[in-house]
């Protein structure tokens, strides 16, 4: 890295969208053989700078040099031809195509008789195995995979082109430790081969593990570019949020080692709840005011269990008692009417409705619950929207902006608002802090704690085990689509405890993680 000229240099880049200056005279440099992390709060402009580089967005001002030459790309494919491969924040793959096809799309191995599928699949398998995905059936349609695996497939796809510059916008937001480790091994190897890697994440641990340098953005402006050695965590955070870190710290951790003694009748009791192929019959009990954590590795069946509780998938075995009454939760509509809300991990496909406004997205569930013939008046809508946009600190707080123009983290906040607005008794949160910045993450954790204190029962799923441990009263540890153990939380329980539970089980029964 020393002495080599930058492979990418962006100077004085400005981009405006109606009502926001997304980038304001930002400089950015990327050198061969480094991992460079972009940091900043939700909406700071990280994804925008990436899209400016690849030409998805036209820049208003500034210049872009790639390998010393002035360039303006016309889009992702154009940039890719110049050796810049990008995995955007919102994974864009074809759900109907197979895994193999998705990885190799546009780079199929050709023989004299057109595409040589055998060789193509072999090439795909090779890349996937680097990420620890050798067990995947390449012929399966991509849409049947969990979001995390889709994310890994997207990364494999970017690596197929053997790029000189690899851009990964929040690739780890839905991965857990094992996959992150795999990914980092590859990133290090590529870096040592001289590839320049641009990385975005909100996880500070990962920043310190993998980065050589960081560039910090705040509100579309450049704060600075630093070698990571020269920046401790507190300084880094205060550079991102432009405030003292102490205020932030006071928010999050109060719930640690909190334990709730369930009394009386459970709000929800499920017996043998299961669905063939996705969830073994499981018992779940949940009390008012309790936070139940679901922990487990990728593909352990956390999401699947949560979906059964909401009727997002129909269970084919088991019984649910809600408030002591046997209840059939056969559809999301039914669940909503029973005051159950579920925020999916898959923000893009099962969360936001891109072309509706922030306001419409936020009131949608409340309105659906009331039925279309009892519309919320404009005033009621405004009250709800104002309340949650302020409470969750959505930026920009413009209710009439189409949802697709919000940054990823802010979309997530609006979705949380959608579910909170239904005033649920049981709130199921699947990766609610996915793609959320450090400050907002602490706020959301505090919000969950506050809800529980008000008597709401919460099911909390996160691939970040520390977060699960911090918030939960009880933790169900899952593996291979079934319940492995149920832990009462307490001072003795840590993320390591959970990892140990999962590993122990793995010793006496060799299971395939997927």
């Amino acid at each position, binding site marked *: 890295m020393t002495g080599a000229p930058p492979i990418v240099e962006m100077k004085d880049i400005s981009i405006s969208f109606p009502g926001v200056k997304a980038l304001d005279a930002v400089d950015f440099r990327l050198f061969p053989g480094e991992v460079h992390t972009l940091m900043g709060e939700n909406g700071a402009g990280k994804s925008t700078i990436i899209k400016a580089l690849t030409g998805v967005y036209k820049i208003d001002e500034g210049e872009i040099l790639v390998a010393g030459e002035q360039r303006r790309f016309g889009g992702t494919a154009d940039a890719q031809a110049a050796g810049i491969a990008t995995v955007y924040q919102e994974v864009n793959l074809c759900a109907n195509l197979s895994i193999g096809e998705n990885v190799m799309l546009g780079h199929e191995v050709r023989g004299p008789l057109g595409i040589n599928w055998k060789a193509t699949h072999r090439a795909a398998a090779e890349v996937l195995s680097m990420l620890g995905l050798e067990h995947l059936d390449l012929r399966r349609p991509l849409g049947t995979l969990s979001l995390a695996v889709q994310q890994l497939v997207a990364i494999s796809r970017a690596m197929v082109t053997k790029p000189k510059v690899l851009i990964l916008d929040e690739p780890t937001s839905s991965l857990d430790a094992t996959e992150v480790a795999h990914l980092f091994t590859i990133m290090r190897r590529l870096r040592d081969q001289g590839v320049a890697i641009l990385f975005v994440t909100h996880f500070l641990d990962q920043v310190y593990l993998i980065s050589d340098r960081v560039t910090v953005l705040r509100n579309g402006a450049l704060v600075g570019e630093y070698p990571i050695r020269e920046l401790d965590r507190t300084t880094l955070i205060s550079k991102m949020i432009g405030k003292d870190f102490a205020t932030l710290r006071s928010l999050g951790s109060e719930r640690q080692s909190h334990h709730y003694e369930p009394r009386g009748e459970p709000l929800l009791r499920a017996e043998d709840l299961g669905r063939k192929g996705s969830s073994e019959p499981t018992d779940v009990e949940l009390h008012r005011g309790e936070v139940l954590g679901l922990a487990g590795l990728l593909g352990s069946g956390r999401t699947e269990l949560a979906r059964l509780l909401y009727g997002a998938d129909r269970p084919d075995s088991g019984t649910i008692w809600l408030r002591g009454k046997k209840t059939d939760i056969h559809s999301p509509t039914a669940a909503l009417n029973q005051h159950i809300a579920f925020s999916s991990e898959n923000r893009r496909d099962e*969360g936001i409705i891109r*072309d509706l406004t922030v306001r419409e997205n936020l009131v949608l569930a409340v309105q*659906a619950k009331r039925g279309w*013939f009892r519309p919320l008046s404009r005033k009621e809508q405004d009250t709800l929207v104002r309340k949650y946009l302020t409470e969750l600190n959505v930026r920009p707080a413009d209710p009439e902006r189409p949802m697709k123009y919000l940054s990823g983290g802010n979309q997530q906040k609006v979705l949380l608002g959608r579910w909170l607005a239904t005033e649920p008794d049981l709130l199921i949160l699947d990766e609610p802090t996915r793609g959320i910045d450090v400050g907002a993450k602490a706020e959301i954790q505090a919000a969950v704690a506050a809800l529980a204190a008000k008597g709401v029962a919460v099911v909390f799923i996160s691939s970040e085990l520390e977060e699960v441990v911090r918030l939960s009263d009880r933790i169900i540890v899952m593996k291979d689509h079934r319940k492995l153990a149920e832990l009462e939380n307490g001072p003795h329980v840590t993320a390591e405890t959970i990892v140990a539970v999962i590993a122990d089980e793995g010793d006496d029964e060799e299971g395939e993680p997927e």
Partner: protein
Amino acid sequence: MTDLASRLAARRGTIVRNQAFWGVVAIVLLLAINVVSDPSYLSIGYNDETGRLSGNLIDILRAAAPILMIAVGMCLVVATGGIDLSVGSIMVVAGAVSMELLHGMDGTAGDAALTLAIALGIATALGAVNGILVSVVGLQPFISTLVMMLAGRGIAKVITGGQNTTADNDSFAWLANGYVLGLPVVFLLAIAIVVLVALLVRRSALGLMLEAIGMDSRASRLAGVNRRGLQLTVYSVSGLLAGIAGVFATASVMTVDVSRTGYLLELDAILAVVIGGTSLAGGKFSIGGAVIGGLLIATLDKTVVFLGIPASATPAFKAVVIVVLSLLQSERVRSLFRHRRALRAQSQKEAVAA
């Protein structure tokens, strides 16, 4: 002054981008063409004795009534990301049922009301069958309604025994041929129904729900939107409106022509919706736009006849008008024009500078 100019320019921008605007332009152009060939084309006569207005414009409004009905129904279906190919066939079923029933009755107003109720009931039921096939069985809308399109005309033939049944009932005929306040009853009814539907959709949360389904059916399902119920509603409404259109179309001549009534009108309805700026991909929809689209199609039909374009060339003429319109509506094409204009302006400036 410059402020005003820029405001006007911005205003013009949004109007020009509004797709229905081009529909209005097309209507005006067609009328202008007709005026060129006959300067008295737009004149409206008033008959003192009957108190009726008459003239080409009135004819156009009358002809537009059935198209408006099916266009509005189609608009709602399209909003959910579906399509209803069966509206023409449901029209002929409603017409066949009415004529067949009236044929055996005495011609009282009560008979007319009863017939109307039964015909519309059957049309709604056929729409509901579409809805069930789409929402519960989970068939593709295109296939479900294609089946209904083929079956509907068959049902109509069975009902009339393959005849073009004719009947007599003054009250029933009044629906299509009567006048109130000098205007044709059909048109007034059509407008009233359109306004009613539009109010229902926009004042309730129905519009938002339909758009949500059309934009992203998975996400809206998880948000608790009752997709099945809404699809069932929308296809039933489309059936009902097609039934009304069928009654309008047959009542004017008091004859059902089992092979011609409503024939290919589903295409007109789809065109009207698209001209009105609603994307066939579903999502945002405009009932007002569909109305303009419907009026345009009626104007186009009448113009073709008025100009004496030979029947064999009619489809080609229609196609040309619609292709031109779609091109004008396309953001891509317009930006191309803008670009060329900007280039020309720039080269002029450069020429001056040099």
